[in-house]
């Protein structure tokens, strides 16, 4: 892929990729943007090796997911969930906190579950595609999706009950 084609593809895929990373980083938009920048730089450096343009998006998401995992390995931030929940209820009207419940719910999933759930429900990838993208087996992805969905539904239902 030529650098000009790369720029065109990036323009198209940039926003969905950033949204995916925001969800993966549980609402930490600055961190998500740092990962997105790193992802796109890695992609730029390797774009000449990509022969098939139609695979660009899946390739980009694979880089993004691996970059996210590398970031996680490098730093394990401590996060007090109770405090985050308090913040979300206090400033719920603010647009920035619109998805706070979802972020809190996502944060309670394991990294792999969160990745699989987001690739499936947010990005619309199939189980097989997610398996290829995350370099896992199909059965592992199915398990992550099943657990992730159960956890997410339970958390969201509990949050809704608490609100009522």
């Amino acid at each position: 892929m030529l650098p000009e084609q790369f720029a065109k593809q990036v323009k198209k895929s940039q926003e969905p990729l950033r949204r995916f990373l925001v969800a993966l980083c549980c609402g930490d938009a600055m961190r998500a943007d740092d990962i997105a920048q790193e992802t796109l730089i890695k992609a730029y450096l390797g774009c000449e090796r990509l022969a098939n343009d139609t695979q660009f998006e899946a390739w980009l998401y694979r880089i993004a997911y691996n970059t996210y995992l590398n970031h996680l390995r490098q730093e394990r931030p401590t996060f007090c969930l109770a405090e985050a929940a308090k913040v979300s209820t206090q400033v719920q009207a603010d647009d920035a906190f619109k998805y706070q419940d979802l972020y809190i719910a996502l944060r309670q999933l394991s990294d792999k579950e969160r990745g699989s759930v987001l690739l499936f429900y947010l990005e619309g990838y199939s189980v097989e595609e997610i398996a290829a993208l995350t370099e896992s087996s199909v059965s592992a992805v199915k398990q992550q999706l099943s657990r992730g969905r159960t956890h997410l539904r339970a958390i969201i239902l509990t949050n809704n009950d608490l609100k009522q």
Partner: protein
Amino acid sequence: MTHNTDPFQDSQLSDLFANFRPQLPSTELFSERLRLKMEAIDIVQQKQKASKTRYRAALIAASVSGCIVGLLLGLMIPNMMRLISNLHFPAMILFDFDITTVAIWSVMVSATVTLSINVFSLVNSRLQPGGQSSL
């Protein structure tokens, strides 16, 4: 990307993510940051490419000059042997072996290596943009 009908399809979760439109930090700033990084990468890549070419040219020049000097010195061995053996240094009696051959080969190797190294650094610095001789 394929939207399929897997048993994992869950309308509640799908709806939840379908409406997921978080406010992203400025796209212009993001693109500008990315553009600057990509430009920096291009500059570094160009410099790396130029430096690789320069090194290759310097290496070829050093090898060629080393071979030529080595060959010339090699052709001069019989003459040098004759010259040194006519000198009759008193210290040469101390050695059991033929010190003349060792001395000649040492001179030859050090002259060739020194010349090659100097040619390498000379060509390398000359080929640098705005480069000056380091010698």
